[in-house]
């Protein structure tokens, strides 16, 4: 009986620890020039913002405008942005010209099967995650509305000051 209790508590401890320590795997996808690029190659020195978006998603374009600014303003502070496009076969042909027209300043990778998004159980477009230099997930933000850019910048500043 005592052993069972110990097991149960251990299991809870394991889960409780694990729940707050989700790590991103070293993903690798094709970029817009048909070459593979990995998280390790693109990540920021301190923080990396990973934005999951699709060309048909209206709030995604709003978020991209703000992430463009962040990618420039925080570059010197060791922060990088990576865009993961999840358009899928139906509309992936539009991604490259749209990226050029939106003048996206950070790298875009194509995840045709939304594999990474599923792995992280993200359920909305756009979704933004912030990870540290070891790939540990520090923050998840689903959806985007005007005003969220303030929340995102505050979060980055807070994480950089830790």
């Amino acid at each position: 009986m005592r052993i069972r209790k110990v097991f149960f508590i251990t299991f809870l401890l394991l889960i409780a620890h694990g729940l707050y320590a989700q790590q991103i795997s070293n993903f690798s996808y094709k970029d817009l020039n048909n070459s593979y690029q990995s998280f390790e190659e693109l990540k920021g020195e301190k923080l990396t913002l990973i934005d999951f978006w699709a060309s048909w998603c209206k709030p995604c374009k709003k978020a991209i405008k703000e992430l463009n600014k962040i990618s420039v303003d925080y570059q010197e502070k060791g922060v990088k942005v990576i865009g993961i496009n999840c358009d899928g076969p139906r509309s992936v042909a539009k991604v490259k010209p749209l990226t050029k027209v939106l003048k996206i300043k950070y790298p875009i990778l194509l995840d045709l099967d939304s594999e990474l998004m599923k792995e992280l159980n993200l359920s909305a477009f756009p979704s933004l995650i912030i990870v540290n230099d070891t790939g540990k997930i520090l923050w998840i933000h689903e959806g985007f509305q005007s005003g969220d850019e303030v929340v995102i910048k505050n979060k980055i500043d807070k994480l950089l000051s830790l």
Partner: protein
Amino acid sequence: MKKKYVYLICLLLIIGSVKAQFSAYNLMEYQYGKLPDNNEDSFSSIYDRFMLNYSLQKFKAGITLENFYSPIEDRNYTRLSQFKLQYKTKSFDIKAGHFYETIGRGLLLRSFEIPGAILEDLSYRSRHYFHKDIRGVSAKYRYKSFSLKVLYGNPLNYLFPPTFDDDLRRPDEVAAITTEYGFLNQTLGVSVMQLKNDSPETMYYNSLNLSGLLFSSVSYYAELAHNINKGNFLNLNDDGAYGFYLSLSSSFGNLGMSLELKEYNNFLIGSGINEPPALVKEHAYRLLNRSTHVLQPTNEKGYQLELFYSLSESSILTFNITRAENNFEQKYVFEEYFLEYSTGLADKHDLKLFIDYAKDPFKQEEKRITTGMNSQWMLTKTSGINLDYEYQNFKRFGSNVTNQLLSVGMTIKSKFSCNLILERSNDPFLLNDNESNRTWLGTNFNYKINSKHQIQLFAGNRRGGPACNSGICYEVLDFKGVELRISSRF
């Protein structure tokens, strides 16, 4: 004996605290209501999807548990609907259990998951998550620009809910091998697939794709897929079974362009395990999203051209032309012309205006004109008011049909939002005998408790119909009642 347990626990704790992680996600949706035109009384139902994932360095495991409960016994179920094991390194990716995989652009095989979508069919009325996975094994190997993928499994036919046996839900058995090699900015891919099901003949398919860059500014992707049982690879006649897809995209300064061509003939594979690109614009505007053309892979050819032009940092003009031609004894031609102007005002407000002209002979819709606006007016730096209006008019059998949508709402960052949606239609396909028009009035509330937990509430009448999400189109049922959705991440 006790010592053994203690050692084991210590070991687990050490491993756990160093590398292992659990993550969990739960989606619960409670409904009280009914289909407006159904004789059933309103009733309560609850759907729940719980996912638990475990990862330890290069190893991952996960399970998905789905439940649906309502007062009608034969619609209810509790199912361990997915399990997965994965071992992934820089070169290898090995999966067993339930996984998602697409070959090329989906001409031969496509699996998918539509985030957050719960499917309900009018015939079965059981609710389940909208996904099409494969149950089996897959292995990928990649070294520099060479990759090889093999897979074996049974794709899900999502039309049947989990109350049905797996024999019905997974009638197809596929085995495929696909390889890619990159050279001089180009990639050549070759795939071969075997399909077994109830039909007496085992089917064999192959596909060839080439993609890359031309003249450093034009990206292209071309794929030709073919049913080997129906003749040689270049049999592009009416008796052949093939799919051809080509895309070209480029940009010149502020102008971006994508052109896609398709030709599919007798190319519905098995119970629908493939999903060739539809080449029909997926609209974010609700009336247009509902008025979509659904691809017929048994016979369809056409093209889609989309142009984007950036007028300034916050203004974009989008123009799309779509044409799809079906020849089923009679020729049906779907055509659509779409123009959108999207702009920012005073660096804080957003305004989108659009106009669309289409003819859809499948739905007997002639001279269909849809127009409207979508706007957000910011009151403070973090809160604003949304106002959307859409109007649609077309002729069917000589009479005028009008659909209208008005949505008014407010948002405070993405922390809180509420919307009132009013729809009105005089479409005879939707009306009962004594009605001259119908109105749907519904309200949505969305509250994000923190970055892990979110609550959504709907109350009122919701109009159903075709809906396209993440590139996949499906049917949504009308609903009258209250719906509460809680999503949690742990």
